């Protein structure tokens, strides 16, 4: 009698345990850790937290934990360290140009290997092609655009009026940039320059600014396999010569290097009439400008051009198939047109897909705030940011070459030739 009771008890408890365990697994289908490259407690943290909470409401079986890593560099370091230590994250937003480093460390998985349905495959193609360039190599998609920016030309309309130029007609091409830049220079009684015409920053991220000039001259800086650069092509040399001459020959720009960090301040203080800077400065300029200012597309040479910047979504390789599916669901949700529109309006990053700009929200926003339209319209002329294997080193080679030319230490041919030679040495083994 007792044995029977005991067996029944055993069966009952086993059934309970099984049932609980089963429902337990069903409840927590996936828990994802995501690294996000913004400062903890910064303004973007709240936006991302809200988005993550909203996602969980619609997908109660997926929980995303956002860990804020401060900036792109920290996010990459943390992510790689976590992978090594065996406590990996499943996805992350990281610098779009980290792609080759991540592939070399075998850290990420291509989206083509995760998508299965036709709808998902279509989704991969729904973004602006220029924004996809930094996320694609070996014909596969490794990064999905999320928070992206471009360079735009800010100009001081009051200064234009002061110099006798039409404030609604910013320079459209290189010739106009040089001539109007010269006209905008204002000197005081003793011949010292009070206001410069143009400032293109050459510290901080000179290669980024240079990417705009070279694209405008019709030349990309690297191939899309990450193992070839074109630093010494004639169009690139011409672009660097133009940049240097803006200062030394035309006198529209100070000669030597121009500091990235103080550029916005210089513009706001009226020290320069035109500045080339990231779309990320839009809100700050709008808030602090004490003058009438405008935003325009960068001027063309053979065509218009600007590099893109910013971060993409990546999925890590050390993940289970369920985790990958869950991460994919999250990323697709984050990049839906409506959400992309909200994100763009809240943060100032550009919309990453054409259908986002067709949502009512963004249509209204762009009508109210024309500079947002400028960034959007320039996207068709945009190109990838400089990215190769050994990307940090290669970038520095180009940065150094640019600075050596702008400070008059080397000629463009010499500097770029040297840089190309050294880049070739670095990249040879990846071919």
């Amino acid at each position, binding site marked *: 009698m007792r044995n029977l009771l005991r067996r029944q008890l055993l069966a009952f408890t086993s059934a309970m345990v099984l049932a609980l365990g089963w429902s337990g697994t069903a409840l927590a289908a996936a828990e994802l850790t995501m690294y996000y490259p913004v400062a903890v407690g910064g303004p973007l943290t709240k936006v991302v937290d809200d988005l993550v909470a909203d996602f969980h409401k619609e997908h109660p079986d997926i929980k995303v934990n956002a860990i804020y890593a401060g900036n792109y560099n920290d996010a990459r370091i943390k992510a790689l360290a976590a992978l090594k230590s065996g406590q990996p994250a499943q996805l992350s937003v990281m610098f779009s140009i980290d792609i080759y480093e991540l592939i070399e*460390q075998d850290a990420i998985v291509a989206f083509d290997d995760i998508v299965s349905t036709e709808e998902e495959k279509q989704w991969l193609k729904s973004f602006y092609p220029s924004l996809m360039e930094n996320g694609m190599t070996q014909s596969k998609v490794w990064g999905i655009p999320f928070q992206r920016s471009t360079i735009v030309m800010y100009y001081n309309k009051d200064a234009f009026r002061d110099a006798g130029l039409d404030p609604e007609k910013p320079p459209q091409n290189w010739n106009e940039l040089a001539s109007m830049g010269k006209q905008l220079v204002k000197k005081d009684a003793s011949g010292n320059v009070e206001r410069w015409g143009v400032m293109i920053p050459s510290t901080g991220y000179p290669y980024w600014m240079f990417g705009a000039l070279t694209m405008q001259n019709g030349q990309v800086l690297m191939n899309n396999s990450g193992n070839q650069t074109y630093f010494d092509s004639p169009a690139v040399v011409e672009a660097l010569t133009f940049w240097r001459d803006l200062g030394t020959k035309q006198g529209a720009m100070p000669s030597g290097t121009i500091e990235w960090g103080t550029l916005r301040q210089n513009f706001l203080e009226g020290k320069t009439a035109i500045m080339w800077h990231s779309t990320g400065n839009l809100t700050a300029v709008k808030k602090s400008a004490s003058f009438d200012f405008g935003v325009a597309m960068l001027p063309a040479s053979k065509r218009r051009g600007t590099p893109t910047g910013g971060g993409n979504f990546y999925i890590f390789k050390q993940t289970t198939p369920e985790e990958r599916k869950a991460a994919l669901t999250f990323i697709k949700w984050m990049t839906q047109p409506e959400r992309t529109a909200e994100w763009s309006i809240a943060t100032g990053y550009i919309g990453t897909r054409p259908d986002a700009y067709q949502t009512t929200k963004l249509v209204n926003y762009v009508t109210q705030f024309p500079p947002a339209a400028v960034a959007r319209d320039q996207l068709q002329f945009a190109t990838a940011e400089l990215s190769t294997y050994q990307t940090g080193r290669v970038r520095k080679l180009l940065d150094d070459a640019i600075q050596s030319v702008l400070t008059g230490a080397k000629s463009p041919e010499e500097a770029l030739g040297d840089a190309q030679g050294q880049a070739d040495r670095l990249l040879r083994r990846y071919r």
Partner: protein
Amino acid sequence: MISSSTRTQVYGWLLLTPAAILLIAFTHYPTVATLAKSFFSTGTVTRPTKFVGAENYALMVTDEVFWKVVDNNIWYAIGTIPASIAIAILMALWVNSSISARGLVRMAYFTPTVLPMIAVANVWLFFYTPDIGLIDQVLGLFGIPGHNWLGDPDTVLGCIIVMTIWKEAGFFMIFYLAALQSLPPELNEAARIEGASRWYYFRRVTFPLLMPTTLFVLINAFINSFKLVDHLFILTKGGPDNASSLLLYYIYEVAFSFFDESYAATLTVVLLGVLAIISVGQFVLLDKRIHYR
């Protein structure tokens, strides 16, 4: 029965052990490991590390940036060491005199020492900013045109040197002050009675007596000229075109921006070599000091 001598030995080593473990782990072992690592290639997941002999060194010798950086560091040392020592002596002499507001003056000289270099670098960035920066504004008052101090390869290293002297002189002043205050006052009296000029007194009496301090400060200054790179992170990041880069900064760049551990190890070996030469020099000089004392 354990003899007291053995007990002493064991006790001695036991007491030393905790400190020894940490010292070995973070000073002696890394030195050896760095040397070893410089003979291997940097490994990635897809390309594991392998022995490459002296290849890293060959690369280093052909690296333009490496020579620029070494050149910079030498000029940096030449620029900062004599000047900061001279100013430190001057400061110590002044603070040691009966000048009014002496406490305030001493505080002003010593303040840079208690401030982190990275914090003050931001202020110096403002000083050096063209046109709207303080230096250009002051120059403007005299009608002198401004200059792109940090953006001009010819002036940038000088600017870094000036900031370093500003940071270091007060620190060295303290050592000189201590030495001055330990000088017997009779010497001063004797000189006064004999009617010696202050410059003569300084040159023939004070300065030689300050020699031990000067040696100590010299070694410190040498080491610091290879160690102080904090301000580069804010002011120039080594630019333009490496005109202001220093060896330790380059090592940081190679290791943590380019992820090239082996090449960074190779560069570190050079830095260790320089420090080794300085320490040998110190031991030799100290030896002499002990002898004529």
